[in-house]
C-alpha cells in the first residue's frame, strides 16, 4: 500500500509540476471566461459602472465598438466628461476642474490607447492580432500564487497578466504606459466574475489605484453607432 501511495504521489506531483505553456494557460483562461466562440461574437460592449468614494458616486460608462471606437463617459453630480478613442482620433474632455473644450490626445497616447478598441480582450487570438505572449512562471499576487503572462502588444506596449491557477481568471494586470516620454505603471485587480446571458464571463469589479469600480450593467452587442465616437 505504501508503495502504491508513494508512486501515486509521484504521479500526482508529476501532474501538477508539469510545465504549462503560455498557450495552455491562455486556452484554459479563455475556456474559463466563456470560450472563444462566445467571445468572437462580441462586437460591441457597453459597461455601466459606479466608482464609490466613501459614499460619493462617480458614474462611468464605457462603450466599445470592436476595432472602431471606445468612449468612456464619466459623470459626477450632473457633470459629464469623456475620453474618445478611434483608430484615427483621440479626445479627452474633463470639465470637472474647469476644462472648457475637449483636448486632442498626443500621437503617442493615441497609439497606446488603440489597445482599448479590442472588445474581445487581448488574449483571444493574440497571435493573429500581432501580440506576443510569454509565460514567465508563477508569482505571488496578494497571497495567491498566479501564472504570470507577459503580453507584448503589437504596438509595443507591455502588460503583465496574473492568472489564478484555480479559476483561470485574471486576478491582476499591470500595464506600463510610456507615452510622452513618461513611464507609468497601472495595476488593476479584477474580481466579482459573473457569467452573462451571452455566455461570456466578465469581472464586474475592477480595483484601481484610486478605488473600486463596480459594474451595474453590461450590454453585449447592443446597437452602437460609429457616430457615437465623435467629440
Amino acid at each position, binding site marked *: 500500500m505504501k508503495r502504491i501511495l508513494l508512486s501515486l504521489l509521484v504521479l500526482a506531483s508529476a501532474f501538477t509540476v508539469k510545465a504549462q505553456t503560455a498557450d495552455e494557460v491562455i486556452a484554459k483562461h479563455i475556456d474559463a471566461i466563456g470560450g472563444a466562440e462566445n467571445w468572437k461574437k462580441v462586437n460591441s460592449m457597453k459597461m455601466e459602472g459606479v466608482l464609490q468614494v*466613501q459614499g460619493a458616486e462617480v458614474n462611468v460608462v464605457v462603450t466599445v465598438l470592436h476595432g472602431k471606437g471606445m468612449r468612456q463617459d464619466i459623470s459626477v453630480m*450632473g457633470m459629464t466628461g469623456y475620453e474618445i478613442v478611434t483608430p484615427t482620433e483621440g479626445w479627452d474632455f474633463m470639465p470637472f476642474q474647469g476644462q472648457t473644450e475637449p483636448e486632442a490626445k498626443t500621437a503617442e497616447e493615441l497609439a497606446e490607447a488603440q489597445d482599448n478598441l479590442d472588445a474581445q480582450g487581448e488574449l483571444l487570438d493574440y497571435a493573429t492580432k500581432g501580440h506576443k505572449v510569454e509565460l514567465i512562471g508563477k508569482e505571488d499576487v496578494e497571497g495567491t500564487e498566479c501564472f504570470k503572462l507577459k503580453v507584448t502588444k503589437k504596438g509595443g506596449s507591455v502588460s503583465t497578466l496574473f492568472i489564478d491557477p484555480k479559476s483561470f481568471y485574471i486576478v491582476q494586470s499591470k500595464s506600463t504606459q510610456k507615452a510622452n516620454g513618461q513611464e507609468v505603471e497601472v495595476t488593476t485587480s479584477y*474580481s466579482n466574475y459573473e457569467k452573462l446571458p451571452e455566455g461570456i464571463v466578465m469581472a464586474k469589479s475592477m480595483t484601481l489605484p484610486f478605488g473600486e469600480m463596480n459594474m451595474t450593467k453590461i450590454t453585449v452587442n447592443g446597437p452602437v453607432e460609429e457616430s457615437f465616437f465623435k467629440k
Partner: protein
Amino acid sequence: MRILTTALALLIAATGFTQTPINSSTFGMMEARWLGPGTMSGRITAIEGVAQDGKTIYIGTAGGGIWKTTNAGASFKPIFDRYCQSIGALAIDPNNPKVIFAGTGESNMRNSVSIGDGLYKSTDGGDNWTKLGLEKTEHIAKVVINPRETNTIYVAAPGPLWHSSKERGLYKSTDGGKTFEKILFISEEAGCADVAVDPEHPDTVYASTWEFRRKPYAFNSGGNGSGMWKSTDGGKTWKELKNGLPAKPFGRIAFAVASSASQNLVAIVESKETGLFISADGGENWKKQSATFNVVSRPFYFSTIVIDPKDPKRVYRPALSFSYSSDGGYSFADASNEGGWVHSDHHALWINPNNTNQIYLGTDGGVYISLDRGATWNFVQSLPVGQFYHASVDDRKPYNIYGGLQDNGSWVGPSAAAGGVSNGLWKPINGGDGFWVQPDPNDIYTAYAESQGGNINRINLVNTKAVNIKPQQAPGEEKLRWNWNTPIVFGAANKKNLYMASQYLYKSVDQGRNWARISPDLTTNDKKKQEQEESGGLSADNTSAENHCTIFTMAESPLDEKLIWAGTDDGNLQYTTDAGKTWTNVAANYKNAGIPAQTWISSIEPSRFDKKVVYATFDNHMYGDHKTWLGYSADMGRTWKLISSPEFTGFAHIIRQDLINKDLLFLGTEMGLFGTLDGGQNWFRMKNKIPEYALVRDIKIHPRTHDLIIATHGRGILIVDDISPIRNLKKETAEKDVVLFPNAPITLTMGQFGDGGFPSTGGWVAGNPPSIPPIKYYLKDRVNSGEVKVEIFDAAGKLVQSIPGSKRKGVNMVMWNLSMKPPKIASGGAKIDFAGFLAPMVLPGEYTIKLKVADSVYTSKVKLVHDPLDKNFTLEDRKKQNKAAMDLYQLHERLATVVDSINDRQKLVKDNLTKVTDSTLKRSMVAYNEELEKLRTELLATKKNSVFADEKKLREDITEVYAGVTGQEAAPSNLQLQRTVTLQSEVKKKEEAAKVVIKKYDEAVKAGLRKEGLIGPKPEKKGF
C-alpha cells in the same frame, strides 16, 4: 483502477486538509510601509545606465537590491525585491539594453559586507529575472560584456570572504550566461577583483586578482595571489603585467581602460608603496604618478577608477572623497561642496557616454548626480536604502523611531506625520557610524546614541547637544574592548536601568552620569583575537571594525531586573540572576544542541512569559558558515533546542517574541524576515511588501500601536501597522472561509492630521498608517466571484454607509471615514461642487457592520465613542456641529430637488420645442424656459468660465458654510450658525420662486403638448 482513484481522492483530501497554513498571505492587506528615509541613503555598489537614452539607470545597492529610474533620477522603483539584496555588479548589453546582468554579493569587503547567491539575468529591463548560477562565489565585483559579441560575458569573482574556496576567479560565458567556464584561477585564497575588455580589440582582456581574507577579528589584503593580468586571446592564456609596477606582494588593484584610446590604462595598485600607475601601451609598461591620499586611500574598500568614455585624459577617482584629473592621472582636483556636502566613501560611477558632463556617483550615503563633470553634485533624495543596525521606539503620539546606520550616524524620525513622513522630518542626532540609539523611557527630551567602538553620547533631543558618557578603564582593569556595534540597552523590567558593555557590562541608573561595572570580563579574552593594530594587510586598517572579544548583545528579563543575559562575539552566553554579582556561562550547553562554538551571539530574547525561557540567535558567518542558527532554552540555558526550518535563509541577527502571544515570533536574518505562530514549529517567510531577502537587523513590536517595526540593513525602516489581527489569529479561525474581526471601540475623529496644504516636492515620502482603525475581516481565499461589500447601519437600523470591500486572501481592511453618505448636490453647473464628496461624521453610538461576501452576510457591532479628553471639541460641541452640518446637508438636498424640477422641465421644453406647431405654445415654452433658466442661474454657478473666474451662487454659498462646519472638529461659530439661518430662508425663497414659475406655465405648456400629441395623457389620479 478504482483503488487508484480512491487513493488519489484520499491524497487530494489529505493535501486539502492541510491547505490553510498560516503564512505571509494570511497577513493579506497588512503590508509594510517603507518609512525610508531617503535623506540618509545607503551604500551604493553599482551604477549602470542605458547609453541609448541616457535616462534609464540601474542602481545596485549593498543591501537594498536594485533600483531603476527611467527619468534620469527623478523617481526610482525597486526591481529586485524577490532576490538577494546585496548587489556587487551590474552590466547592460550595449546592443540590447533590455538585457541586464546582476552579480550579487558586493565586493566592498568591509566587516559588515553581505553575501550574494550568484549571477542573475533579465531580458526585459529588470521586470523578470533568472538566476544563471555562480551561487557559491558569494561576491561578484564586476561583470563586463564584449561590446562586439554580447553573448560573451566576463564575471570577476573575488569569491568567499571568510573561507578558502575554489569558487573564485574570472569566469567567462560565450552563450549569454547559460554556461560559464573559469578562465583565470590563482588559488583558493585569491579571487578576481576587476576585469576589463579592450573595446577596440575585444580579445584583449585585463584582470586583477586579489588575495584577501577576513577573520572575525582581523583582515588581510595582500599576498602573492594578487596580480595584474592580460590576455590577448579572450582569456585562454594569461600574462602577468609587471614592468614598472612596484614589487609584489600586491593587495587589491583597481584599474580602467580608456575606451576612446584603449592602449591607455590607469591602475591603483595596493602594495607596500601603494600608488596610481598609468600605461600607454596596453599594460606592458607602467609609470607611477604622484597622486596620494584620496587617490590611493583604503584600496580594499575604494576600488573604483573610471576614465571618461570620450576623453582618455579625464580620469575619475571616487574614493574617500571625489577626485578628478584632466591630465591622465598626473594631477587631481577634489570635487566642490558648492552643491551641498557629498557623502564620503565612494564605490560606483556611471558617465553618460553621449553626454559626458552627466555623471552618477554611488557613495556610502546614496547617489549623487553631477552635470558638470564631477565638479559639483546634487543628492538624490528618493532612494530609501539606509542600512540600519538597530531601531528603538518611544511612546509619543505618533511614536518616533530611533536608529543608527552604517556610515550614516544616528537619527530619529516620526512613524507618521501630516502629509506623510518625508525626509525633512528625520533628525540627525549623532555622527560617525551609527548603531544602537535608545530614547530615554523616563525623559522624552533625552536619547543615547553611539559611534563605532562604544563612543556613547547622552543627547539632548531639543538642541542635539551631546555629553560623552563612555565608561572608562578603571585601575587594575584590562584595556576596554568595545565592539564596533556596542550594545546600549534599557532594562525591560526596570526602565531606569541603562546598560552598555565592553568586555564588561556596565549599568547606570542616572542617565550615564555614573556607571557601575556589574560583571567580570564575560568574553573568552583570547589574546590571539585582539591584535587589531596588525590588521589590514599591506595597508594598515584599524577602525574598531575588527575589535573582538567583546560583549555584542545583552538583555534584561522583562520579568526580573536582576536576571540579565549577555552574549559575546566570541561565543560566550552568560546570565546573572542577582543583577551581576555572579554569572553563569552556558556556552557549552548550546554547543550540545549542535550550535557551533565561538559564534557571535547576535541577539538574546528572554521571554516575557516565563523567566526560564530564553531565545538566542547565533551568527557564525565570519567562520564561513551561513546557516541560520536559532536556539531556545526553557531551563535557563541549561539545555538548548535548535530551532530550524526549511524556509530559513541567511545568518541570524535577531529573534523577537510578541508582547502578548508567546507563540508568535519573528526572526530576522541576513536574507529575510520569518514568522511563526506556533512557537517555532512552522515558519514562513514574510512578504507583503517586505523584500523577500531583506537584511533584517532588528525587530520591535510597539506596545501601544502593535506595529511591527523592522530595521533593515539596506531598505531603511519598514513598518507593518497593527499586527493584532495576526496575533489573535487561531488556527481554527484560519480554517474558516470568512471571519469578520471584532472591533474595539473607535474614537470618533477625522483623522490624525490636517491636510497640510502642499504636496511633497520630491524626496522619499512614506505613507501614514490609517488614522482611523479599519474594519478588518479574513478571507481564506481570494474571492473571485460575487461581490464583497461592507454596510454600516446605525442603532435605528438605517443604512449609514456602504463601501466596496477588498477580496484578497488573508486579512482585508476597509477604511470607513466614520461619516454618512454625502448629500445629493444640485446637479449641473460649471464645475464640480466639493460638497458632494463631503459628509457629516456620525454621532457616538453603537453601529452594526454587515459584511457581505457573495451570498453570505457576517455581522458585528462597533461602538463609536467621543473622546472625553478632547477639550477643544466636547460632546456638546460635537452635537452642535452635527446639527449644523445636517441643517446644511438638508439645504443642499432641498436645493438639489429644486434644480432637478427645473432641469426636468427645461428638458421637456428642449425636447419638444422644434416639434411644436402652435406658435403661442412655442412662445410660451420659450418664456417658460427663460424664466426657469434665470432662476437656475441664481441657484448654482453656471457660467462656462475658466476655474480662475470664480462664480458663487446659492449652491456655492451653502457649500462654503457646509464645508467649513462639516470639515471641522469644533462647534460651529456664531456666524456660521447665523449664516445657516440666512441660507435656509434663501432656499425657501427659491423653492417658492420655482413653484411660482412652474405654476405660471407648467399646466398650460403640458396641456398644449398633450394636444399636439407630443406627450402622453395626464396620469390619472389614483385613490381619491
